[in-house]
């Protein structure tokens, strides 16, 4: 049902040709098509507007009006632009400290606990002494969930079932890690809404208490327009170090990722592509994500056809 970008550009360009003369107004209508394609991929409205304005400037600057193959030039400009926006190169995840500490944050159901398990498995494979911490005291069976994952991957999980204070649980866990020779601690927290003042205060307090080496923000890649607001609100409170994109094994375009990257200016560090803990956590590749957002496989072939 969703038209991909190459079709849109093709169509828009045909219109250009049909009219005989290529004008700035025609370019504007092509840019509008691109904007709609971005919006359908869940790129934030404001971000889409900004990006397409930049694309228009660039297209006009490169004098697309007199180019013999304006469609291809246009397509290339768009493709390059998005890749650039996704962030030039990969930013490695390498938390420092002894033990190093990682704080996991995000909305309800975004995939924090599952990611905590995945990260634990990965760190263990790298030879680290890992401690996972169950600091979600709200969700029914949240502690059991993390314990189950810990068992699956053979990593210790720190719990305090009677303690309802995530701050002291996290602090105690770090102490426990120190006395037990752990090299890295990963703290899972409850899901929370950015507008929930009390819950945002809570995670801020956890952060203050343990001063984590890395704070990660976990976001569902299917999120729509609100992703940017949420990411911004979490970043304002936590000044997180990186983003984890989950559920990319689905068929979402993932335009929210681009929007977060642009607005919050924090790197995407991991992508998660499945419910199983093994081999479903990957590094983030900006170019692939840019292509995914626009269904760009076709766009590239369009350029190559030239």
């Amino acid at each position, binding site marked *: 049902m969703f038209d991909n970008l190459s079709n849109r550009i093709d169509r828009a360009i045909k219109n250009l040709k049909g009219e005989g003369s290529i004008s700035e107004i025609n370019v504007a209508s092509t840019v509008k098509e691109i904007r709609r394609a971005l919006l359908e991929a869940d790129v934030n409205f404001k971000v889409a507007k900004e990006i397409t304005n930049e694309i228009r400037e660039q297209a006009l600057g490169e004098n697309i009006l007199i180019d013999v193959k304006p469609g291809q030039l246009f397509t290339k400009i768009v493709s390059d632009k998005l890749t650039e926006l996704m962030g030039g190169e990969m930013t490695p995840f390498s938390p420092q400290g002894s033990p190093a500490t990682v704080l996991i944050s995000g909305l309800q159901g975004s995939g924090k606990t599952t990611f905590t398990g995945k990260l634990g498995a990965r760190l263990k494979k790298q030879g680290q002494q890992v401690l996972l911490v169950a600091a979600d005291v709200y969700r029914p*069976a949240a502690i059991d969930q993390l314990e189950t994952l810990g068992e699956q991957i053979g990593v210790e999980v720190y719990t305090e079932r009677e303690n309802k204070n995530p701050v002291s649980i996290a602090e105690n866990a770090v102490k426990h890690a120190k006395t037990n020779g752990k090299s890295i601690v990963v703290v899972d927290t409850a899901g929370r809404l950015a507008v929930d003042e009390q819950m945002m205060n809570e995670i801020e307090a956890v952060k203050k208490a343990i001063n984590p080496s890395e704070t990660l923000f976990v976001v569902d890649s299917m999120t729509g327009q609100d992703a940017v607001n949420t990411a911004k609100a979490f970043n304002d409170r936590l000044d997180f170090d990186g983003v984890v994109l989950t559920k990319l094994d689905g068929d979402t375009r993932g335009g929210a990722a681009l929007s977060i990257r642009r607005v919050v200016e924090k790197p995407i560090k991991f992508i998660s592509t499945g419910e199983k803990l093994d081999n479903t956590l990957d590094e983030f590749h900006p170019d692939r994500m840019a292509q995914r957002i626009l269904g760009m496989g076709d766009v590239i072939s369009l350029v190559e056809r030239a």
Partner: protein
Amino acid sequence: EKSRGSIFDKITKAVAGKSKVDDDVLDNLEEILVTSDVGVETTLKIIDRIEARVEKDKYVDAQELNQILHEEIASLLDENKSEDVDGFSIPEGIEGPYVMLVVGVNGVGKTTTIGKLSAKFKAKGYKVVLGAADTFRAAAVDQLKLWGERTGVEVVAKGMNVDPSSVAFEAVKKGVDSNADIIIVDTAGRLHNKVNLMNELSKIKRSMQKVAPGVPHDVILVLDGSTGQNAQNQAREFMKATEVSGLAITKLDGTAKGGVVIGISDEFKIPVKYIGVGEGVDHLQAFRKMEFVESLFGGRDATKTN
């Protein structure tokens, strides 16, 4: 906070001193709808309809335009056929227990919604049985059991890693044998593009029908209110795999507007039955069309001038 401003303010501003719906008004409207995740296609459809209406009715002022806007958007939301006033009763003409199956992608709020539903039904004096047929996600059975304890409702479970169909079968059987009024079966989250997992739903349904033909009476697809355009794909694929008869939209207590549901309800003719507005047991409401449309526009009565 621009996007949360009242639409009426915006419309008033946009039409001030004008005698027709011009590009400013339409651009404004487009922004409001798209930033609520309504999606480009549905937004354009709404705009077309408004233009046609205005053409026909010869619109005069902002107040009227505002009214038209609400009506047109509401008309895209499929009507809930049941006469039920509060949304939490058993549909007419069902013999034996009323059986619901709850489905959706990962982490949207299926289990929580079932917990809340069971409380609502219990409070009305119905006898409820829950089936823990998510035997895959870590501690999923524990989670549902805790909800059962919380609401005082029986949970049929056979543990983790057993065939979900057999749990669904047992749950329906238990409900029928014990003269329950309502049976609600939880399922594991599954991404709609995973063929095997989607086929599993048909199998679950067939096994339920071995106990009572004609069940489930309702299949509720749970959508996360912060999901973007991917929710369209989710609805399409779940519709194909199983006869979805109603939607539940969760997490509307955040800033996300859940606008994507408008296009879905229109395209697939499925009514929205419930909305989730929090993590607590009381945070479930029957869907009210006009309230939803209002909240899309910033939560205030848009027909009042001040």
